[in-house]
């Protein structure tokens, strides 16, 4: 059984089919990249997987269990956790608090118990702080514990966001354009970092525009254009696929399709 199975996923906004009959699978231990020209529907797919949108048709199965129809917090509980294309950290909060927020749904004591000192709460909060430190070590931010999140340099903010997603104990991490806005050196480092995250999670779904990053870390690439899958395979297979080249560069032979990307 695949770790993640997306089957015939379709969503329409009015007359527009944003995601059209999309199917792909992810095995345990894989980095799967979802690529495609701007407007191909990549972020929509993430929003479908995380329950933010409900698809008109299709299934999203995590270890065999269908997640369609679940709310965003239920999906996180099942094990899908995400980062954002444009960083969405809690800007007025410390680095530590941002990670703690990522653990919000795992908290084992209720709102009522939170108001008094009690063993359950004390125990949990202690563990949470310890785990926060651990996560921050993994993403290399342990020295910035009490810094304000927005005072961090850009690359570190991305890592904090990934740390926040890890705090939810996901099975699958969904990274929406993690390399956006990074310089080549940062991208190089990020690639190694993402690959290393497979020690923490069972699988990673990556949306990325930077082909160098995608090609270097993906086990499998799914190419979308106009919401539909046009190709799927290893980096080498995808790179040589004529349909992919067309989607990115336009049709050979002087058609005006170039502008469609």
């Amino acid at each position, binding site marked *: 059984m695949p770790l993640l199975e997306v089957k015939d996923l379709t969503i329409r906004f009015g007359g527009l089919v944003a995601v059209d009959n999309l199917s792909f699978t992810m095995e345990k231990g894989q980095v799967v990249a979802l690529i495609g020209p701007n407007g191909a529907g990549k972020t929509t797919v993430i*929003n479908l997987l995380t329950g933010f949108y409900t698809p008109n048709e299709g299934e999203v199965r995590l270890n065999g269990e269908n997640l369609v129809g679940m709310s965003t917090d239920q999906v996180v509980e099942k094990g899908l956790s995400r980062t954002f294309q444009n960083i969405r950290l809690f800007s007025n*909060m410390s680095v530590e608090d941002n990670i703690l*927020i990522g653990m919000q749904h795992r908290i084992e004591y209720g*709102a009522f118990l*939170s108001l008094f000192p009690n063993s359950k709460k004390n125990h949990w909060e202690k563990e949470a702080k310890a785990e926060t430190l651990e996560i921050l070590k993994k993403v290399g931010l342990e020295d910035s514990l009490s810094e304000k999140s927005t005072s961090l340099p850009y690359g570190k903010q991305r890592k904090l966001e990934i740390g926040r997603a890890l705090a939810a104990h996901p099975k699958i991490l969904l990274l929406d354009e993690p390399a956006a806005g990074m310089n080549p050196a940062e991208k190089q480092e990020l690639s190694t970092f993402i690959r290393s995250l497979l020690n923490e999670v069972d699988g990673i779904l990556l949306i990325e525009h930077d082909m160098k990053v995608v090609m270097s870390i993906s086990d499998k690439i799914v190419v979308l254009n106009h919401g539909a899958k046009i190709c799927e395979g290893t980096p080498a297979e995808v790179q040589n696929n004529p349909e992919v080249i067309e989607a990115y560069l336009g049709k050979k032979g002087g058609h005006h399709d170039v502008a469609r990307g």
Partner: protein
Amino acid sequence: MSKFLQILVNGISLGSIYALTAIGYSLIYSILQLINMSNAAVFLTSAVIFYALYSSITAGSVALTFILTLIAAGALGYVIEFIAIRPIREKGDSNTYALISSIGVKTILEQLCQGTFGSEIKPFPTLLAGKYINLAGARTSAIQIIIIVVTLVILLGMTWFTQHNRVGRGLRALSQNLNACHLMGMPVNTLIGLSFTVGSMLAAVSGVAYCMYLSSISISVGSAIGNKAFAATVLGGIGELKGAVIGGYILAIAENFVSGYWSMSASNFISFAILILVLIIKPTGIFGKKEQKKV
């Protein structure tokens, strides 16, 4: 000098009452950008619940009555959000609809209170009635001191709550980026419901305290204080909790000075004169930050 002090003490105790209710407005605004008009009615309803419980089931025990009232107010807040705000929010409709819905809730609660309680003024239980302390010439009643002390404790508690409590931490996250919280899969609905619970409990403390201060209750207390607490929120900067508190104190002290040195009736419009001035000169209030609309 003693007159000055007297006015100041009166201002601070009234300011405490404004501040507690104002926090409720500010908290919910900071998360939903919604002016929750039902807050003023919760202020009244809580006082009525206290009165009803005290004159029947829990007669004699102020502490027990108070605890039961707090629980009832907290539940009421959650229910208000659940019934009147959440469906509108989930449909993605404009906040204007939610505002109107909250005005509807306010009206319903006020009418319920009027129907069950009646429209006459009734005596309200107070604490240590007739006990006064002389603070450098300012005659301070015991209940005034209790109100000021309780408010300070609650404000400290709120600081702890927002900084170190899991719910408070969540509410802070919500107020900074509601959409991200939603996309991240935080239990947004429950947290928003709890923000109404917190706001309502503060309004309940405020409502009971105010009636104890007056030693009487009538159904007009809600709108009288509720509207002024709202003015205080705007003065301090809506959406900022410390703004609500400072705004509450400034407004109440200003009112007391106007009524002490000028006239009683002028004090009743001074809040709203200040409100209008703030809106003209610095619409974001004392602590409010200018919001940058992202396009």
